């Protein structure tokens, strides 16, 4: 397997402009002859499908939800970054680029990140034009807030629902194209495999989730915009349906999987309340603008928060990271919370929680201002916990939230399978080992609105291969493989539910491949996951039939993939003998407990090649060359 990132020549500032000006184009009359398959309709997928259809391509779009509008991008609360410098506070394309690379602990590809920062401003313009109701100042201009990991205020937002509003913008653009017949939309349809013909991606196999019917679709290119894999942990902030099946099955067909161990544990989530909990809920990072994080100074202090005098509180983020304080990046804040709880100073049930306290801000600004900024978040917190955060501090604890790893892509977002493109969270390219807040929405829309329209054109203009139809034997083979897997799952008829296995896998992943990892723990996890995976295929019980609306069968296929993916995550974490960003190996830390990077041996992306079930995968390496940035120790002190 050869990893060629195909980064254009020239200085960092020139690369994208030059690429766009010189890239091969598909003629206007020829675009409709190309059929593009888009899987997933979150920010990346909806924006790509709408934009490609506008350009004239014939597009089919697929999503597992009942409506394209429900993709999990909708849950993003805080905002979207853009280097607009409307605040005149020193922002620029370069600064957004630099902070993103630094935030990612110098493990992202420079050229991709620079392009992301470059197109960020146009995203805001595009969304405003679509009618996204961003927050405004009384002057009528767009409002900004601050986010973790940045010293400027560049985050645009729509109350606590930025993701929903941006997705509704992209969804409405997509809906227009569907209404005009330019996009054929397939809701309640899940991709189960990729069809590869002569080494190129030429179609997908999908299951209609209502009828259970499995069928194939042929196309000239396939775009996977299917999000991340945090649900490998079972408990995460992702929606219950979020899954890795599309990218994992593409991986099994030859797409390299890069940096699977880079997972983001978000610091501000509502702590787990009990053993039957089905998911964790995030409280926007924007809360840290006005909330102060603390734990009692004494261990085992069980007093109510209001009874702990200020002098006996440890505002540990402000203490350890005076420059960034409560706005330290996510990975740093999460680990600090874990350290406090490990020291026995955690609060709430089981001592796994820290306070996020708004009392000072309410005293300074008044309850009205806080309600205006975070009202819906406070309400959500109260609904879940039964506690009123205007009166008592919130309790928060880190939870799996986002995965920086994903399918390896080149500069043009193409995977190691020609014709297979990967956009948004599903790829690995822009966030390195840690993503900064408000950058996921930016990346999803950058990929969909502004990058893929050019890079897909380059591929199609260059390929112009013979048309393939579902009568090609590769389609029959792939359909048969999917049918075999479904039959196998239904035939086990064991004693345990899919969820019970998923919970068990999640617990192993969280304990060994969560916020702190050790070689010993990871080795044992790999063995445990293999054993559990074998039991799964002997003892899982999937009720119902294949040719029916069967949510248990949907889950069963996804969890089968999590076993293989979970093992790869541990393997990747084990091989990366350093700490960087969200990947914290306890053996590699400074005297103060911060991540200790090893640039000599690990300044690269690790891309894994599938070699077959039960066989060891092969680790390939893409060296990361930093031309414009000096590698530095990441400090937020």
């Amino acid at each position: 397997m050869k990893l060629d990132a195909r980064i254009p020549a020239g200085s960092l500032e020139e690369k994208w402009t030059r690429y766009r000006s010189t890239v091969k184009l598909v003629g206007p009359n020829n675009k409709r002859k190309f059929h593009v398959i888009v899987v997933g309709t979150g920010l990346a997928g909806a924006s790509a499908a709408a934009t490609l259809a506008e350009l004239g391509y014939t597009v089919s779009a697929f999503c597992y939800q009942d409506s394209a509008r429900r993709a999990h991008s909708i849950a993003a609360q805080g905002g979207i970054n853009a280097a607009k410098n409307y605040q005149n506070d020193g922002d620029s394309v370069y600064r957004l680029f630099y902070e993103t690379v630094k935030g990612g602990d110098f493990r992202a590809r420079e050229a991709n990140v620079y392009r992301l920062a470059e197109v960020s401003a146009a995203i805001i313009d595009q969304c405003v034009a679509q009618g996204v109701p961003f927050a405004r100042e009384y002057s009528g201009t767009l409002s900004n807030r601050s986010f973790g990991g940045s010293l400027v205020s560049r985050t645009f937002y729509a109350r606590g629902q930025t993701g929903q509003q941006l997705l509704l913008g992209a969804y409405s653009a997509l809906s227009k194209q569907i209404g005009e017949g330019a996009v054929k939309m397939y809701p309640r349809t899940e991709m189960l495999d990729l069809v590869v013909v002569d080494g190129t991606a030429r179609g997908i196999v999908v299951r209609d989730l209502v009828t259970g019917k499995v069928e194939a679709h042929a196309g000239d290119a396939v775009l996977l915009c299917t999000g991340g894999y945090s649900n490998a942990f079972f408990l995460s902030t992702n929606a219950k349906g979020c899954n890795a099946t599309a990218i994992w099955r593409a991986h099994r067909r030859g797409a390299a999987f890069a940096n699977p161990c880079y997972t983001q544990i978000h610091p501000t989530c509502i702590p787990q309340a009990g053993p039957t909990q089905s998911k964790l809920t995030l409280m926007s990072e924007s809360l840290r603008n006005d909330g102060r994080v603390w734990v009692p100074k004494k261990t085992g202090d069980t007093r109510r928060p209001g009874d702990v005098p200020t002098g006996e509180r440890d505002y540990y983020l402000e203490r350890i990271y005076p420059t960034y304080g409560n706005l330290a990046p996510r990975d740093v804040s999460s680990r600090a919370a874990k350290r406090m709880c490990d020291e026995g100073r955690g609060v709430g049930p089981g001592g796994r929680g820290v306070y996020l306290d708004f009392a000072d801000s309410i005293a300074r600004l008044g309850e009205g201002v806080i309600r205006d900024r975070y009202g819906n978040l406070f309400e959500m917190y109260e609904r879940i916990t039964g506690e009123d955060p205007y009166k008592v501090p919130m309790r928060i604890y880190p939870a799996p939230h986002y995965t920086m790893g994903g399918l390896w892509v080149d500069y043009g977002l193409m995977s190691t399978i020609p014709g297979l493109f990967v956009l948004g969270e599903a790829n690995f390219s822009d966030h390195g080992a840690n993503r900064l807040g408000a950058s996921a929405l930016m990346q999803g829309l950058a990929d969909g609105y502004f990058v893929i329209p050019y890079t897909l054109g380059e591929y199609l203009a260059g390929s112009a291969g013979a048309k393939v139809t579902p009568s090609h034997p590769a389609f029959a083979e792939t359909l048969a493989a999917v049918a075999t897997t479904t039959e196998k799952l239904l035939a086990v008829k064991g004693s345990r539910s899919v969820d019970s296995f998923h919970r068990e896998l999640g617990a192993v992943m969280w304990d060994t491949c969560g916020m702190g990892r050790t070689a010993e723990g990871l080795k044992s996890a790999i063995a445990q996951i293999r054993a559990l995976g074998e039991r799964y295929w002997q003892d899982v019980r999937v009720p119902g039939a294949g040719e029916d609306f069967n949510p248990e069968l949907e889950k069963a296929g996804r969890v089968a993939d999590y076993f293989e993916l979970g093992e790869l995550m541990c393997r990747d974490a084990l091989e990366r003998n350093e700490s960087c960003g969200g990947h914290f190996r306890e053996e590699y830390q400074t005297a103060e407990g911060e991540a200790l990077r090893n640039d000599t041996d690990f300044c690269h992306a690790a891309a894994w090649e599938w070699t077959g079930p039960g066989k060891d995968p092969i680790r390939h390496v893409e060296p990361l060359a930093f031309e414009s940035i000096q590698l530095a120790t990441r400090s937020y002190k």
Partner: protein
Amino acid sequence: MKLTLHIWRQKNRSDEGRFVTYELADVDDHMSLLEMLDLLNERLIGKGEEPVAFEHDCREGICGSCGLVINGIAHGKEKGTTVCQLHMRHFADGDVVYIEPFRARAFPVIKDLVVDRSAFDRIVQAGGFVSARTGSAPDGNAVPVAKPVADLAMDAAECIGCGACVAACPNGAAMLFLAAKISHLGLLPQGQPERSARARAMVSRMEYEGFGSCTNYRECEAVCPKRISVNFIARLNRDFMKASLFNETIPAGKAAGGA
């Protein structure tokens, strides 16, 4: 706590459907209503019975997937709350709970508690957008929007498209859903060029999909998990009346949502 559940079971669209009673023990205060159903399903699977199908995804009140009628009220009796955020602490030991799907002519049942709400998508496809070709947008600050206007547009835009308004309406009307969309885009300067065409196209599609008419019951507002105000329906009516009076020509295919 222990609950008696009467849950609507329906094999598919053509099945008649019926309530089936389940006794469920060990329900915890911390659980959401959906986690309570998870527990029930876990037990049903253990007994070799088919689990109850229900729609859900984000489980944090924003995706709009979940929607159940709990004891006769869409999303249950807590105000401004989706059913995934309805916690069992609001129930008491020994309670009898009826759980049904959203019922409306335009929302046929797919299975058990899952309904088909794709009519909403087709209404949006008919005209629920601002045509803004990617790359053609002026600077985001080129057109100022007064804060109160932006805030009001945002109030309308908060609609999550769950369909509770339709389920609660005695007429099965989708007016609150439509009003939210029309008001969100119609309030903003970016939405002006297509404002009339949008109102006509979306209303016409709504009628075609078999939703009823608004007769001011205001049940929709009472159950809306995002507390969308019925005042927006007045905006919708105004936009639609104006559009009808001016009688602008709309391409026929687009008005009906294309094919």
